[in-house]
């Protein structure tokens, strides 16, 4: 039987290898969540606008990204964004962190497709009568959306949006494909440099599990609260 010893995972090892990657994973998740929800909401509004020239491109965008594996999308973005783009936005620093920046852009645009489907369902969950009521009291389309529909759509869908964010956090580990330095990359380095694959990968699984499980428990509590409000 194998003898497990996690003693080598001391503060020194964690701060050298893991901390940097963990911070990046969290940053990537938060930026992609905020950016993805904003772009996703715009896409959802386009799809529900009823104007063909807006519906078509949004539908093609969402359906295309949803049919391709995330790893493939990560590789495409990494390939297609030219080096000049990175040096233009952040000089040498950005060039040195190409993979990390490319992943931030990829996840924002990729997750937007998934968030847009959630927001679309959210917008449709608001009874149409409310929009007509808005028009009847003289509101414009923009006012109706901003003041009546979107706040409710957002609130109704909050648990689903957060669940998607937990999936997003798990998916950030796939930046492995382009070698970006995330939480898993850090643990992978520990496994290889200290020759402790068994303990390191188990520890990685535990860290992801604890984070994702506690977040999903929080989402479940939130869901119960929202149910009462409705």
């Amino acid at each position, binding site marked *: 039987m194998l003898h497990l010893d996690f003693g080598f995972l001391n503060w020194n090892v964690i701060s050298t290898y893991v901390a940097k990657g963990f911070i990046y994973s969290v940053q990537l998740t938060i930026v992609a969540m905020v950016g993805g929800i904003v772009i996703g909401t715009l896409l959802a509004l386009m799809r529900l606008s009823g104007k063909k020239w807006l519906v078509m491109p949004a539908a093609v965008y969402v359906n295309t990204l949803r*049919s391709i594996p995330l*790893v493939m999308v990560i590789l495409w973005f990494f390939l297609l964004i030219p080096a000049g783009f990175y040096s233009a936005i952040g000089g040498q620093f950005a060039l040195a962190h190409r993979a990390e920046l490319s992943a931030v852009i990829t996840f924002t645009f990729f997750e937007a497709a998934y968030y847009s489907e959630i927001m679309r369902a959210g917008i449709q969950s608001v009874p149409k009568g409310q929009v007509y009521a808005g028009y009847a009291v003289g509101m414009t389309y923009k006012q109706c959306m901003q003041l009546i529909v979107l706040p409710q759509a957002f609130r109704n869908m909050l648990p689903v949006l957060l669940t998607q964010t937990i999936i997003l956090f*798990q998916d950030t580990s*796939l930046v492995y494909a382009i070698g970006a330095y995330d939480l898993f990359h850090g643990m992978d380095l520990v496994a290889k440099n200290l020759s402790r694959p068994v303990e390191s990968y188990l520890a990685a*699984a535990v860290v992801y599990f604890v984070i994702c499980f506690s977040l999903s428990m929080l989402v479940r509590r939130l869901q119960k609260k929202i149910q009462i409000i409705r």
Partner: protein
Amino acid sequence: MGSTWDWELFLQDTGGGRTYLDWMMSAWGWTMLVSVLALVVALVVGSLVGILRTTPSKTLVFIGDAWTELFRNVPLLVQLFIWYHVIPQMVPSLQAVPGLVLAVFGLGFFTSARIAEQVRAGIMALPKGQRYAGLAMGLTLPQTYRYVLLPMAFRIVIPPITSESMNIIKNSSVTFAVQISELIFFALQSSEETARPNTIYLAVTVLYFISAFAVNRVMAVVEKRVQVPGMMVGGGK
């Protein structure tokens, strides 16, 4: 890096007596093989776990819940690394098992958590009276499941299982990280060799599209075949 298209590269020899096209087709075969086998594992295990979670026994419900949470809250990439680098170290008899089998179980168990969730929801969606009716007629609990609950529940969960089958093809791409020579693995290796990533990525992307579409059509046929006349299961048209 190769910004021009070069479709003739697929006719080039890889150096091993076959063309890049041959290699890509074999990689596509691996993608489909891993996906289909993992889907079988996921359907069997997922249905079982989903059923456990609806039984009256608290212990069985707990086991089912724990299984679902465990496999749902760890990223697939990390799970595959555990299957490859941890489990064979802990269970030495598994060291001779081929990588494909480990990948199939990794992807299958990961997906089983999602299938379990759908199956459980399908069973819960049935009116409680059906379960009581079955038990009142003197059927045992397993018989009630077999003859009353599951025939309807499985039909209800066909649409979500269709989307899980499409997801499993997408998720099989992660197995490149454990050296399964599927499409992403091919894409990475061959772009390195040929310096024509654009061409290769596009071809691979198209193959993923075709695969997802094919699964979608197959499942649509399945859904139609098993439909109970007069029941509008799964929304219908």
